Structure formats: C-alpha cells, structure tokens
C-alpha cells in the first residue's frame, strides 16, 4: 500500500457490508414489528441502534486515528481513505436516524389508530 498512514482496523469494504447488513435487517425487522406491536418494535430498534452506535464509534475511532496520524494528508490516497471512512460513518448515522424515524412515525400511526383526544 502506498499509504503514508497505516489503518489499524477493519477495511472500508468490510465495514460497509457490515453496516449495510445491520441497517437492512434492522429496518426490515423494525418495520415488520411495527405492524405487530409497537413496544417490541421500539425495543428492537433500540437494540439495532446500540449495534449501529458501536459501529459508529468504531468508525469514528478509525477516522480520528487516521486524521491525527503524523504525515496525514501528504498523499491523495490518505485523503481518499479518510473520505471513504467518513462516508461509511455518514451511512451508519443515516441508518440510525432512519430507525428512529420509523419508530417515531410508527408511534404517530398508532396514535391515529387509537383515536382522537386520547392523551
């Protein structure tokens, strides 16, 4: 590798696949459970959020290590790597927010079903 800075950790490709898998499984199961029971959907969402948060922390760690390494930025390849990991971090955040949005909108749907003026 021509990199001036070595990356300690999972490669970007692996990380992308892991994120995508967790996000898709999470989204499908939360969406499915919303039709059954909102409480269980929320718990599942929370679980997947925790997994994604761990992934996000892991990726951010790599990003910080990369950017604070001495000599970072001396080659374009470094910058490309930094951008790749940041894009993965954005993807993880996106999945987290999506799950939260699902739960929130699911809650609204349920309130609507329950009828007006409940609270």
């Amino acid at each position, binding site marked *: 590798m021509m990199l001036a800075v070595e990356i300690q950790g999972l490669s970007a490709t692996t990380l992308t696949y892991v994120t995508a898998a967790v996000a898709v499984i999470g989204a499908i199961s939360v969406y499915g459970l919303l039709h059954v029971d909102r409480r269980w959907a929320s718990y599942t969402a929370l679980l997947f959020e925790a997994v994604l948060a761990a992934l996000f922390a892991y990726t*951010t760690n790599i990003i910080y290590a990369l*950017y604070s390494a001495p000599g970072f930025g001396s080659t374009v390849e470094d910058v490309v790597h*930094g951008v790749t990991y*940041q894009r993965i971090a954005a993807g993880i*955040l996106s999945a987290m*927010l999506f799950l939260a949005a699902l739960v*929130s909108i699911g809650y*609204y749907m349920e*309130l609507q079903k329950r009828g007006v003026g409940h609270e």
Partner: protein
Amino acid sequence: MKALIRLWELILERFHLKEFLEHPVPRFSSLNPLYWFGDVAAMSFFILAITGFALALLYTPGLSLTKTPPDPLLGHNAKEVYDATESYSSVYKITYLTPLGFILRQIHLWSAYMMIFATLAHFFAKFILGSYKRRGGGALWLLGVLLGVLTIGQAVLGYILPLHLDGILAIQIGLNLFRYFDYFGIPVGQLVLSVLGSLFVTDQVIKMIYVLHILIVPAIILVLLGLKINGILYGGVAPPPIKDEELRRKAMEEKEPFYPHRFALMVGQLLLQLSVILLLTAMTPLPLLEPWVPGQEVPPGVRPPWPVMWYYTYVKMIDPFISVGLPIFLVLFAMVVPLLDRKGGISIEERWVWVIIAIVYIAIIGYGTVLGFLVDIPKELTPLTRISVPPDYAVPYTGTPQAVGP
C-alpha cells in the same frame, strides 16, 4: 423510568407548556402531501443554521494565494499542488483534512439543496391549493415569496464562498450581469459597484458575501420565518381543496392534539430528513470543484448553481437587456397573485385557471433549468444590442500609441 416521566410531566406543568403543546391541529394536513414541504424547508433551515455555525468557525474568507492538493473526489490523483485562494484552501481543509469535516460540509450542501427543492415544491403546492384565499393567507403568501427569494439568494452566496473556479465565475457574473439592468434609468450595475467597491472579486467583496451569507440574510430569514410560523400557529393551515362545503368543514373540524400526535410525526420527519441527507452524503458526495486564482487561464464552460440555472439559461438565450429583470417580474407576479385570484371557491375544480397558471409558472423555472443542463447555447449568438464605443473608451492610449522598437 417512572421518575423521568414524573419530571417530564412536572416540566410541562410548571412551565405552562401543556396549554401550548396540546393545542388542537387539524388532522387532514398531516395526511396530504401538499402540506408537507413547508415543514421540510423550515427544518432544513435549522439544519443549515447549525452546520453553518460549525463551518463558519473553520472557514477563512480571502483571496490571498495559497497552495492546495487536488480534489480527490474529482478523480484527480496527481501528486501535484495547485494554486488556490485562501477561501478554497480553508474549505479544502474542512472537507478533506478535518475528521468528520467532510460529513459536516456534505450535510450543509445536501440540506441546502433539499431546502431549495422543498421551497419550490411548497410554493407550487400552495399555489395549487390557493392557500392565500383564507383569512391571513395573503400575508403568509407574501412572506413565503420573500423567503423563497432569500433562500435562492443564500444558495448563490454559499456557492460563491469556497471560491472554486465555478464560484468565482458565479461571482463575476453576479457582479457584472446587473450592468444590463437599467430599466427605469436606475443603474443597478453602478449601485453594485458602489456597495461592493469592485467589479472583480476582491477580499472586500468576498468578506461582504461572507457576512451576507452567515449573518444578514439568515437573520432576515429567521425573522420572516418566525412571523410565518406564528401566522400558521394562530391562523391555521389552508383548508383542503374540496368543493363540498360540508365535507370541507368536517375535515377542518377533525382535530388532534399537537402533542404528542403531530409532535411525533414532526420528530419522525426531521429524523427521516436527516437520514436521507446522510444517505446522500454516503452515496453521492459532492466534490469541491477545482481551484482557480486570478491570472490563470480559465477552461471553457461555466456551471452556475442549479437553483439559478433557469435564470442563467434565459439571460443567455434572450437579449440580456430584456431578460435580466425576469426574476423581478416573476417575483412581482407571485406577489400580486393573491390580489388577482380572489373570486370563486377554493377547490381545484373551481380554480383550474389558476392551477394552469401555477403549472406554467413552475414550468418556466423547470424548463430553463433542464435546458441549461442539456443544451450548450450556440456560440455565435449575436445580441440585439451592440454598443459602439467611441475610440476614447476602446483604445488603450490617450494620445497616439507609442511604439517600442527593437
């Protein structure tokens, strides 16, 4: 958990938030897509304000000469170093050399695009609904038109700030285009010169644009947006476009409390919006374009920011002495719409003429935008007006030219 809920209840009660939060809102407006875009635009504004604050801390405006490596997203992989302005270098630093700075800038860009798109969609939706026909709707419509103009202005100002080649061409065209604007004997070009002090980009000009972009325009937007939200809070939303009076009344009367019903929906919307923005960041990040400093050769082609592409297309195609004021007429027309469209009901069947006008209005903008991206305007375009200049204004000598012989 119980204690937390108790605390929350206590806060609601002691701060008298219950009265506000539980005010009833009509239900139909959360189900009809024509009522969604205003929220999206307003949320985008707040996302932009927060990311903009962080970006403003890291950005330095200026034209002084610096060096920068190439933009990796543009496919440059050279080891070369380019000349760039200080503005460009600082944006480069934010985007490529700061941890998470890339995400920050991408969120800012994508939410700006989302805000403009939502603003246009919102304008179109309210035009079709004729929402200015209700009591207080005219005032809200006026505020909306002003906000739309400011939003597009913000997009252009923000596009200029990194001072990449496209940004510099945009500011150059912005500074010089208004020379054509001389409709009523008011020399707008001269006014631009007297306020900005130059018709070529300088430190002073870029500082002015920076201040406008981060302080003045957002402040005006915030005030107008506050007025608008207040108007909607107390005046309600536009009635649904149904002809049957009875059905309409029923739809209006079916309410739900703002909290927790609508509140949950709005939180969901905000989260979904942020999620989409971040997905776009991950999938299709926007590159920082190539740098340029004064004196360098300019490669052919100019790409204005897409929110003003339609305008650019029309001034390019039609004689600029005529077309330079097109946006002013579009805005003026939008402002007087509530005065023209007064009679008749509010349903779409009764207002079909105005629905067509709304479609034409949006089509003017959409057509120009698409054309601008698709068609390369013919180079041998001769304007209707050629100014023939007396020699004094054309020749680089006051007297007879002096030869320098070898």
